[in-house]
């Protein structure tokens, strides 16, 4: 009963708890001026996450994924007995709010590493991290420009430039599409990924016949879908978040749209499928290999544990958060302390055994993970190749 209540509270008031944690951290930092040895006792892992705002599910993925990672580290006796503590700031998926948050993490909390998600946010925070020589770990943003920011930026997620080649190939060869309508979210993620897709799709002889934009957190897709329906494209390529896709698929079925749907990775998510119901039938995507139900043994074990704990299956971002923290811990275990040392460690890992799959970074710090193609068939997610 007691543990039950505790976990419930953590789920329902994370922001407050973390804010409390931050106040404590601040107090410790100030206290550390007189007793430096005291402040040495913990390692810090910073995070700027959308705990509230249009995509709060990502805040939740982070909180849950990091919770499991910390538990495992504790079981393993931490880093020679020294704890890792997560310092979380709510960035609301808003670049301005997130910038203030990372400045605080770097200047006040003095974290060597910060995890974040969201293309708009990663592109805004990247230069700040690079300039301050602090590692920025991206666990969900796909905008290809993330690659160009600098050598302190790591991405555990493959970026759209690589994945979209597979996606566009699937559109042209797998779905035999000649025309496509785009429906994308109005931010760096939506614009970056959809324009990458459009370039590749049109490069392979396809044609984009309509282009519609929706707001973050949109629930009413009647209008853009009506226009797409009358554009009558072979496929709809959707770029957006899980909740948005769920609503869009549902509405598309209701208004009798015939086009098949293709999406970027990460959309085969419990949230999408719950919202869309049988309207998700036929949805395809070049997806991440992470699959908590049918994936590798390690993925399934993580999925099972996560589900028992939180009563839902993990999204891939939760798995990547887990891996990011484990990678950080591994770097610390090798004796790495400064951001430079941690960076060198990360660049050196080969097939790190993560729950999202084996992790290897290319020389620009982007994961080499290769996508797989999946489709929803008969209410199940099926691997196509």
């Amino acid at each position: 009963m007691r543990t039950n209540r505790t976990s419930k509270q953590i789920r329902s008031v994370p922001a407050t708890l973390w804010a409390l944690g931050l106040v404590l951290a601040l107090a410790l930092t100030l206290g550390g001026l007189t007793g430096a040895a005291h402040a040495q006792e913990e390692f810090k892992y910073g995070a700027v996450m959308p705990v509230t705002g249009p995509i709060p599910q990502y805040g939740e993925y982070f909180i849950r994924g990091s919770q499991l990672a910390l538990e495992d580290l504790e079981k393993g006796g931490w880093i020679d007995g020294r704890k890792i503590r997560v310092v979380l700031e709510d960035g609301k998926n808003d670049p301005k709010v997130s910038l203030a948050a990372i400045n605080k993490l770097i200047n006040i909390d003095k974290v060597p590493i910060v995890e974040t998600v969201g293309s708009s946010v990663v592109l805004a925070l990247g230069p700040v991290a690079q300039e301050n020589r602090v590692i920025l770990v991206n666990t969900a943003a796909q905008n290809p420009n993330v690659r160009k920011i600098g050598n302190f930026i790591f991405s555990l997620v493959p970026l759209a430039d690589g994945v979209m080649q597979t996606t566009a190939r699937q559109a042209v060869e797998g779905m035999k599409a000649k025309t496509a309508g785009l429906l994308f979210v109005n931010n760096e993620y939506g614009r970056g990924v959809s324009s990458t897709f459009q370039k590749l799709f049109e490069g392979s002889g396809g044609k984009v016949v309509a282009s519609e934009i929706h707001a973050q957190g949109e629930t009413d897709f009647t209008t853009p879908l009506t226009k797409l329906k009358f554009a009558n494209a072979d496929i709809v390529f959707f770029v957006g978040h899980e909740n948005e896709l769920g609503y869009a698929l549902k509405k598309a079925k209701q208004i009798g749209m015939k086009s098949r749907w293709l999406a970027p990775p990460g959309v085969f998510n419990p949230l999408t499928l719950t919202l869309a119901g049988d309207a998700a039938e036929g949805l395809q995507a070049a997806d991440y290999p992470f699959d908590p139900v049918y994936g590798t043994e390690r993925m399934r074990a993580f999925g099972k544990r996560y589900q028992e704990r939180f009563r839902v299956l993990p999204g891939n971002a939760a798995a990547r958060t887990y891996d990011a923290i484990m990678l950080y811990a591994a770097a610390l275990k090798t004796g790495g302390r400064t951001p430079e040392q941690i960076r060198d460690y990360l660049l050196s890992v080969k097939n790190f055994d993560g729950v999202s799959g084996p992790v290897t970074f290319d020389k620009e710090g982007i994961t080499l993970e290769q996508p797989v193609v999946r489709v929803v068939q008969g209410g199940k997610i099926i691997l196509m190749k």
Partner: protein
Amino acid sequence: MAHWLLLQLLINGIVAGSLYALLAISFATIYAPTKTFHFAHASIYVYSGYFLYQFAMGWGWPLPVSILGGVVTAGAMGVLVDRVVYTPLRRSGAGVMEVLLSSFAVFVVLQSVLLLVWKSDPRTIRVPEVLKNGIPFGVLTVTPLDLLTVATAGAVLAAVAVFMRYTRLGKAIRAIENDAGMAVMVGIPTEGVRMATFFLGSALVAVAAVFTALDKGLEPTIGVQALLVAVVAMIVGGVGSFPGAALAGLLLGVVENLGIWKIPSEWKSTITFSVLALFLLFRPSGFFGQRVARYSE
């Protein structure tokens, strides 16, 4: 093909507009007689959707009962907000600005409570699939739920019109709107009428919320957008004119949907504000606001 799209957009506009008309009337019902800028109306809107969710999905009540339950609970909640927050403030001499601020505070608090109780996850309400699957008319589609929405909104608006015109309570609401001080002087029980307006306005907004929830699902943030539409429609229609507000709501829905025929649909709310701006510039009293402008002191 293009003119078919236009026709489909017109249909969508009428469906959206009929809900906007309800929103406008619901806000005007409270604003016109009490002059309370009830910002927390946005909360009532969201809560009525979540009440419906709780009754239908949480407790498994039959859908019609849940809908009725949601509407009545929302009405009671509106009265509660007035009695617990606005009325004590009013009695201690608070002005329009203080009440507006307190209303905003209520909105913020209720929003947080909502997140605690129902979390931020989007919610959908299970509706018989037949209601949502479009009926094709050639290339056009209308869902039975759309038809039900328009029919219900029409019936409710007609009922409100009859109520305002022919019942003693409705007349009293209009009298208070016209001159609250005189209403007290001639012995109209204004506090009772005030409670009735909060109940009615909140129940009306709940009807709009219910249909939105059934069609599109719920997110904690949908209230402000709805409030915005309600206020814009009320201003465009002419403050104090119920037919004006309803008509403006309908028109707003149609204009929003037709407006994005050639421009990207993300501009929809920009259209709403452009309509507001145009009216404020060229016809600040709205469609039917003239009488009010002439006689209100």
